[in-house]
């Protein structure tokens, strides 16, 4: 089995689907000849030609409209938004248009579009590049929102996203792109959207998380085990809309304590949603309130204080101790 970085796995997923299905198109700013600013589409235009993998003019809203229109003519567009902080320019196409295509046509049309975008902190990008805006997407009816945490998942989830007939927002954490390698099978395989993964088994506390915070949480879990002898279970949601609450509830039945860790700001996002659902479905299994570890409710910090601003293992450990000592 090949060892790949997450970005190689993402490229491989697009390659597999471009080979499998002639209706798959990959496009965005700089994705053609240049292979993308992160090289996510490197080599794809050379292999599949300019009709399948192409550059667009520099206009995010135009990219969104193009994707929706191509979806109406039988294509499966994979549109790259160069950085997810630019999503505001294409919000209408994603949230206002693609997400409601099936509803407004009474089920006649769908919008089989994947909007791929890099996001995520810790890599010192300029403003409006790194922001974790998955909460905005997750709140929007009609969208699926996927955030992989490792190369294997990234490929399997992206293949599923491309094959899905509903619009999918696929967010790729920049810090995970090249930070480590993992085993990735050749050829095609899929990981179902909307299914979480228990990445570390434990019996005392459940951490529910996704994206880069999976790794932060795993570090915290190891530390907690070493320092306090507690066994921490870590769940990687993989899809933040819809949420696989069943896997979370099963875990809480075992651990009776939970915290939610996300890189995004504190309020009104994915973490509060998970906590609400835990309240609705597992309150009698809880020995302590569910806490969340998040960034503060400010705009994404400038690079100078980015590392302090982002949740780290220390803050996760503090929350683990709080739910244990409640």
């Amino acid at each position, binding site marked *: 089995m090949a060892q790949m970085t997450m970005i190689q796995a993402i490229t491989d997923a697009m390659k597999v689907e471009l080979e499998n299905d002639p209706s798959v198109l990959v496009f965005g700013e700089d994705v053609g000849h240049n292979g993308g600013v992160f090289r996510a589409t490197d080599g794809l235009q050379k292999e599949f030609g300019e009709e399948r993998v192409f550059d667009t*003019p520099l206009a995010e809203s*135009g990219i969104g*409209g*193009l994707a*929706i*229109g191509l979806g*109406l003519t039988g294509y499966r567009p994979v549109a790259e938004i160069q950085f997810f902080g630019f999503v505001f320019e294409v919000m209408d196409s994603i949230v206002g248009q693609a997400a409601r295509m099936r509803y407004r*046509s*009474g089920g006649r049309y769908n919008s089989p579009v994947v909007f791929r975008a890099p996001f995520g902190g810790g890599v010192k990008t300029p403003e409006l590049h790194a922001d974790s805006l998955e909460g905005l997407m997750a709140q929007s009816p009609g969208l699926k929102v996927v955030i992989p945490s490792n190369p294997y998942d990234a490929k399997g989830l992206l293949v599923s996203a491309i094959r*899905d007939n509903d619009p999918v927002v696929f967010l790729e954490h920049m810090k995970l792109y090249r930070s480590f390698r993992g085993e990735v099978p050749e050829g095609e395989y899929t990981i179902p959207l909307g299914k979480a993964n228990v990445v570390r088994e434990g019996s005392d506390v459940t951490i529910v998380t996704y994206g880069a915070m999976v790794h932060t949480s795993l570090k915290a879990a190891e530390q907690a085990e070493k320092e306090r002898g507690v066994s921490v279970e870590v769940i990687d949601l993989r899809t933040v809309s819809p949420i696989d609450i069943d896997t979370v509830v099963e875990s809480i039945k075992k651990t009776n304590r939970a915290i939610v860790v996300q890189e995004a700001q504190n309020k009104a996002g994915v973490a509060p949603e998970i906590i609400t659902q835990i309240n609705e479905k597992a309150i009698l299994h809880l020995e302590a309130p569910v806490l969340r570890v998040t960034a503060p409710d400010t705009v994404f910090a400038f690079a100078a204080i980015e590392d302090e601003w982002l949740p780290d293992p220390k803050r996760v450990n503090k929350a683990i101790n709080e739910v244990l000592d409640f």
Partner: protein
Amino acid sequence: MSTNLEAIRAEEQETIQVLDPDGNIVSKDLEPDLSDDQLREIMTRMVYTRVWDQRAISLNRQGRLGFYAPVAGQEATMIGSHFAMNKEDFLLPSYRDIPQIVWHGLPLYQAFLYSRGHQTGGKIPEDVNVLMPQIIIGAQIIQTTGVAYGFKLNGEKRVALTYIGDGGTSQGDFYEGVNFAGAYQAPAIFIVQNNRYAISVPIEKQTAADTLAQKAVAAGIPGYQVDGMDVLAVYAVANKVAEKARNGEGPALIESLTYRYGPHTMAGDDPTRYRTNEEATEWENNDPIVRFRKYLEAKGIWSEEDENKVMEEAKEDISAAIKKADEIEKMTVPGLIDTMFEKTPDHLEEQKEWFGTEE
């Protein structure tokens, strides 16, 4: 290379006209090659649409329709441009463009259901190539480019046609869509229905551009300005650009100078707050149906009797369509929930239970 400081500007453009207000041909070269039957069909559709508009306004006032944007005055632009389309062409309308959707094949009763906010209104039959009217001004422009580019990639000789108003040309999406279409040489046709007012804001306050047609220049695509009260001129230009688009010669933008006689929509707009009676009367004296009637009568292919027959048929069709719309079963929340995703996810299955199961 000039050594003088001269700004680059759009070329001057002349408004294209075929018929003068008395129905006389003023540009023989542009007179479209249409059969008598086709000419009668265009007139039939304009008269039918006028009757339907009057009826829709009245039904709205009785509370039997929902959202409705009156179209009287704009028939030549709407019908003339649409008549240049083939059945397999794809139409992406704006909120006022219900007539073109229906003439493209959407059953009339569905247009009424759409007005009432019923989901069945938008359930497009398989062989009808349309989207329902776009409400976000400009979104249809970028989507049209996507559909048109899809046709080009498929090697199909089809065009994507869309409409926007004068105000809509101020939107970013308008520029993005037209520019993308130019960059990809996609077979898209953008029709700007310049009826002089974006609800209440006059064109003079909308832009400093002399024409809206010249907005095509910046995108490197052809732009035309046409007399939008002259159905033959609108048809002639739309037909020409559609033929070119089908032959791989790329997109075009048409500005059609027209006027809505009524309010922006039936939801409380009062045009007397921002338009003078004199202005409205002047445009009404330039009525597209009157002008075309004179032309057809002079050719001896239209009569008062013909017109009355169309009006009667329209009234009957409308009554039947309203009756059919009344008979369609009510929308349900569980039914709505099931149109969010191809396979309804668990959390939405749970939410369906809040409303009980469908009968």
